[in-house]
């Protein structure tokens, strides 16, 4: 019985140790290093140079209009300002991402999941919507740059609007600070909805048909069945998907790098983009790599609740014995 002897206990560690060493060396130690670096200015060799305390965080949140432009806020109606201000810096852009990316991905994905099971060509529809999930954000970026092209002869979106309205002046969709974020968000929704749909669709098919039948026999309409039976039964998969979308949107980088490089100006930057820019591109400033590390720590703090949630959920399922 190798499993119970002392040697067996040692063996288990032996199986796990290569993975644990790699994780410790390349995930945990670097995370500790980055957290520590966030309190320093740092230098080009990423040494802990010139201790600053909380200055990096303070500068980020109060003294960096590209990250958070507090001057744009007047504080009377914070919710309204958050939704409408399009020039509040990377953090506010990311808030827009969270609001619009999450809500539209969920609504479209849930709608598709509910409706697609009712038609015979379900598989074809699902495949069409799922395909963008396989494509890299780089390719998604190129695809949508073509769609958003300002040239009315070759850009699909401008051509379509031009077809309806001859007096229409073509719009540089990703060239306008007021539009660029929504154009990027839509492209990313396009790439993510397939996932939402597939997860929720699998969950819908798991709802016992007897429950729906019983409700129909009792004379419940389709809308009531959706609202009172399907929706409550889908609450767990919806929360899983919401968490996935949230973590995704905190980390969003590739598509912005490809489509706009954070531009025009700095109007489409988000947190992850700021981190890259401040750490690897912004050599002229005096802030040093500690500043980028502070941005990374902010990202870690934002996703930390999800870590706790996942661990808790796993424990409550009692899979760990």
């Amino acid at each position, binding site marked *: 019985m190798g499993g119970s002897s002392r040697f067996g206990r040692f063996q288990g560690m032996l199986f796990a140790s290569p993975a644990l060493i790699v994780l410790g060396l390349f995930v945990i130690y670097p995370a500790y290093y980055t957290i520590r670096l966030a309190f320093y200015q740092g230098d080009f060799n990423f040494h802990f140079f010139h201790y600053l305390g909380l200055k990096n965080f303070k500068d980020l949140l109060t003294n960096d209009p590209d990250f958070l432009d507090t001057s744009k806020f007047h504080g009377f109606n914070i919710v309204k300002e958050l939704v409408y201000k399009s020039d509040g810096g990377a953090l506010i852009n990311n808030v827009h991402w969270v609001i619009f990316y999450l809500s539209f991905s969920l609504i479209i994905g849930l709608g598709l999941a509910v409706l697609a099971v009712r038609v015979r060509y379900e598989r074809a529809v699902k495949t069409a919507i799922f395909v963008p999930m396989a494509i890299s954000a780089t390719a998604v970026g*190129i695809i949508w740059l073509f769609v958003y092209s300002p040239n009315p002869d070759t850009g699909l979106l401008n051509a379509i609007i031009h077809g309806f309205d001859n007096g229409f002046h073509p719009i540089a969709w990703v060239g306008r600070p007021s539009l660029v974020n929504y154009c990027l968000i839509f492209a990313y929704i396009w790439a993510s909805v397939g996932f939402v749909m597939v997860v929720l669709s699998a969950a819908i098919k798991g709802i016992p048909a007897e429950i729906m039948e019983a409700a129909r026999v009792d004379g419940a309409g389709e809308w009531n069945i959706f609202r009172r039976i399907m929706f409550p039964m889908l609450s767990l998969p919806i929360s899983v998907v919401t968490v996935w979308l949230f973590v995704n949107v905190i980390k969003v980088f590739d598509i912005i790098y490809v489509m706009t490089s954070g531009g025009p100006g700095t109007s489409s930057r988000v947190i992850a983009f700021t981190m890259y820019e401040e750490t690897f591109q912004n050599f002229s400033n005096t802030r040093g790599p500690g500043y980028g590390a502070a941005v990374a720590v902010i990202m870690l703090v934002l996703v930390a609740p999800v870590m706790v949630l996942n661990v808790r959920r796993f424990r409550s399922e009692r899979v760990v014995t």
Partner: protein
Amino acid sequence: MATVDQAVRISAQTRSERLIRFITRTPIHFGLIAIAVIWLVPTVGLAITSFRKPNNIAATGWWHALTQWDWTLHNYGSVIHATGMGHAWVNSLIITLPATILPLTLGALAAFGFAWVPFPFRDTLFLAIIALMIVPIQTSLVPLLKLFRDWHLNSPHFGIGAFSFVGIWLAHTAFGLPLAVFLLRNFFITLPKDLIEAARMDGASNLAIFRRIVVPLSVPALASFAIFQFLWVWNDLLMALVFLAGQPDKAPMTVRIPYLLSTYGQEYNLLSAAAFLLMIVPLIVFFSLQRYFVQGLLAGSVKT
């Protein structure tokens, strides 16, 4: 189990009922087909563009190609040879294959330990691995870069090109591992206990049980993770940007294409062909291994 699908179908019985159903469902058909078209058209447009002649691309939209015959493979020749995209395609493969096999192997070994060979702090360590799945790559970029620099892994120091890739292989392995361990451990634990106990009684070593029983029985789970990780690495931009910075001859396609965009921004013929070359590998994987692919993604929903 009966599904909603069937339940809906059973309810239509008489002809008039069917007619009413058809009418009430027209908006559903309309909406679904409209969305499917919106979701397909951008990709199809890019694919068509990549097969058109450069002067046509500049003059008219790709939808004109549906009525006028002007297909050509010329763009692919240009983009592969003149812009180094063929080389970048090979780089993508060189980065992706080890970065898939390494976490798969290490992850499967660890998952076996977590599932079947008890050791001290096993459950605590497993919960820690679940937490690690969410850690953003950004918190590791700088220290890893420093580490690889200190180890001379991401400079052509050794005079052997392959060493440049070691850093990015290790980084991808580290960030793929938590998911691999989580996914595979949860699959391994469902294997019949009797089978493993019986093998132990027969004196089989843990390694033999792993190789002869666990791995052969877990091919679907191993395939799901392998596909997920393959596409994750193939599609990755950020790690390649950071760990292969300053080495254009090592850059994968995801890095090469934005570069192409900044230098040939208006040359849609090159851009579309390059993007299509980048997409074609995931699309082939998707259409040939759709079941594993979807399973892998569903299982990977805890990672992002």
